[in-house]
Structure formats: C-alpha cells, structure tokens
C-alpha cells in the first residue's frame, strides 16, 4: 500500500504479482478486459472495474530475440527473448518465454503461466505447452 494515498491500479497489479497472481482489470459497464493497469476503461472510459485473476493460459502473438543488451542489466543474458502473448481472457501482455526451441517459429503457439523469481520480484513468464 502507498502510505501517501489509495493504492493505484498499477500498485494493485504489482502487489498481486508478488502474491503469485496474474491479474487484469475488467470494466463493470462494458465488459472490456485489459492490461496494463489504468484508471479508465480504454473502450468506454468508465472508472468502474473489477480486478480478476487470469487463468494463465495464453497464445503467442509475436516474439523477438535480443542480441544486443540496450539495458545494461541484460548484458550477460544475450541472446534472450521477449514475447507478446494474448491471455485467453483477452488482455495482451509482454513477457519472456522460458525456452524456445532453436529454429522454431512460435507465433500462434499455446503457452502457460509460470512465475519465476528474477530481478528482485516474481516475474510472470510463460512456457510452451
């Protein structure tokens, strides 16, 4: 909790991750579901929404492999991948795929949520199923 005021949607999202739960927001007025956390529904601007837990099932939209570490924290990790996945509930998120077989195109592949302790927090990563 933020001592200076009420918890922001982003703080609520990160607090849930620390408990090992991947959550997203769903609009109480129009039903739209989204990530990342925010105050207004991007579809109808409603400020009324619930925080729901994702099933952890998702599909790969696209992925890349970094061969250059623009962020110095990753200089000993190249090559590493970053992927976009669509949760079955709708929201899209950026993540890492735990292992991608050499030479395989994983666009469209099904993946499952797998939390890993890294970067001093619980990171919601995914593995191919």
């Amino acid at each position: 909790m933020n001592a200076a005021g009420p918890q922001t949607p982003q703080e609520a999202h990160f607090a849930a991750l620390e408990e090992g739960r991947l959550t997203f927001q769903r609009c109480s007025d129009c039903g739209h579901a989204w990530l990342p956390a925010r105050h207004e529904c991007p579809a109808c601007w409603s400020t009324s929404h619930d925080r729901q837990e994702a099933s952890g099932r998702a599909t790969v939209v696209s992925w890349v492999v970094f061969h250059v570490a623009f962020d110095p924290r990753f200089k000993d990790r190249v090559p590493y991948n970053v992927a976009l996945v669509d949760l079955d509930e709708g929201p899209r998120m950026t993540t890492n795929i735990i292992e991608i077989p050499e030479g395989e195109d994983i666009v469209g592949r099904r993946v499952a949520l797998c939390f890993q302790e890294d970067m001093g927090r619980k990171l919601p990563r995914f593995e191919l199923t």
Partner: protein
Amino acid sequence: MGATSVIAGIGQTAFGKLPGRSTVSMNIEACGNALTDAGVEKDAVDGLLVKVPTSRVEMMYGQTLAEAMGLEPRFGGVFDQGGASNISMIALASMAIEAGQCDVVLVSLADNPKTGTRQAYEKSWGDAADFGWSSVVAGYALIARRYAHEFPGAFDLFREIAIACRSHGASNPKAQLKLPLDAATYDNAAWVVDPLRRDDCCLISDGGAAVVVMSQRRARELGVAAPVPVLGFGQGNSSSDVTLRHDLTQTRADVSAETAFHMAGLSPKDMDCAQIYDCFTITVAMTLESYGFGTRRELADLARSGGFLSDGALPLNTSGGLLSETGMPGLQLVLEGVRQMRGTSTSQVKDAKKCVVSNQGGIMHTHSTLILGQ
C-alpha cells in the same frame, strides 16, 4: 483538388557525425540553405515550424530557435509526432497559409543522436523493462516477426528493399553511407534484435534539413526559380503502443495515403517514384502495401525484378533513404522528392512528374503522406 502551396526551397547540412553542433545551429544552417535555394530573404519569413529533437527534449524549443534566427514569427511552434512530424508540419504550413495566418513558412528538422544521446532509441519501456523489453528496433522486430509469420517471402522483400536503398545511397555523394549492399552481406550480417539484422536498420546520424513553404502566387511574385507544387497530404495515427496494437501488421498509413491521394486526385499508379520512410526495412514493406502499391507477394515480385531501382517500375528512396543517406527522421525524403520533381536527383528517374513521400514516427504510432508534382 489539391493544395495551392509549393515547396519553394530546400536545404540541408552535411549528414553523419557532426561533433560540436547544436540542433539550433544545424536548424539555422538548413534553413539558411533552404532560403538561398528559394532565392528568398529571411525578412520574408513569418512562420517557423520545427520538429522536437530526440537527443535533447526542451520546452518551447520553437521559440528558442526563432530567437536564435532573429525571427518573431506570426505562426509557429514545435510538432511532436516523431518522424511523421515533418510532412504534418508541411501540411499545417499549407493550411495556415491558405487560411491567411502566414505567408512564408520554414519547416525544419535537426537532431544529433550520433554525437549526443541515443537514449530515445535504446530506452527500456515501462512495466516491461524487467523482461528486457527495450529499444525502438525491438518494437519493429516484433512487427517483422509477425509479418514474416503471415508472409513467408518477407525476408526476400526486406533484403531487396535494403539493397535498393543502399544502391541509391552509393550514387549520392552527400550520403552518410555510400557502401552498396549485396545479398550475401545482408544474409550474413549480425542480428540486432532477431528477426532484424544490421542492414535492416537505419543509420544513426547528426544533421538537419529544411524546406520553405509558400503559396503558388507568392512564389511567382518572389520569382522563385523552381517551386514544386504540393498536391496532397494526409495523416493517420495508430497511437497505441506496439505491444498493445490490435493487429501488429496494420497501421493507419492506409488512411493517411487515402487522404493524400484523394486530395491530389491521383492514385498509386500515377506515381513515378516513392520516397518511403525506411527506419527499418519492414516499414517500407508495410507502407507500400498500405498505400496500395500491391500485395506482399506482388511487392516481393516487383522487388526481385529490380523494380525499386531508379530505372525500375517503382523507384524507391532514390537518395538512399534512412538506410543509406542519413538516419535523420524523415525530412530528407521530402527534399529528395523535390529534387526528383526538379530533375536534379543523383539517381534521377526519367521524366518523373509525380512523387509520393511517406513519414512515420515512434514504432508505427504516427504516419503522414505527401504528394508532390509538377
């Protein structure tokens, strides 16, 4: 149909590594050269529009530049739409002139990421930073992977785009990179962010460019030697972050082009050459498709037959583009469009009468289109 404005003059600085030059200094040099080219005195200028530099963002930059130029413009300011800013500023200048808000407008761009900071291109992105999500190139790589999944001939098309741009850059004595590219070199170059290799990525450059915009009538009164009519312009903004974009391989470039072609009363088949924003090869492939120059397969076939070379069916980026002339974000493509219409390009297209120019910004967040003619 069409606008009533012209590009009366063009100017630029050297391109490449320019240590010790501020963006203000490079903007002034480019503007001075554009006024000389137009044959117009500084005193005639009453509008100044400038793109915000990426290397150092500061408040009220347009006024800082105006002060340094000794101008008190009636109309002006900064545009912050990334690389799409340039054509959007030319459009804004044309509309302002037509609405009687000003008479002679300088539109200018200068940046110095090569000697200054590249932070704008390499930074980490918000909540996803802990996954290693960073840089502009990675955003384009994400789009390119999806595109290649949808269209298996993608990398053949990307390779031909790079080869054509580099071939034209090699013929341009003022280009930053004058080294032609062959297929084997492209295929063997190091990955930056897979699936994009070194030669899929534009240069990092210091430099500036500027154009003078005025009405056709004013150009006649001032005796401008080689005015090039602005026939149409348009914009389209995808706006969403690339990681949230509904369809990774569709942008609002189609709306931008449709607006511009409709305004000009022309269609893609009327274009004698195309100067297409090539921050990465994928950008050119998607823009040409969105503009109506053909399907992915048709574009790949056109590319393979040399169609993008200056004697081909659709000459592309005839001064070398961002891949070869300068990585500066976009106004140089307008300058080359003007040279093609004047018949003064270093890779001149025979009898070129119409040219389309595209600009875009961010990771395909913004797009703008310009149609020039004679």
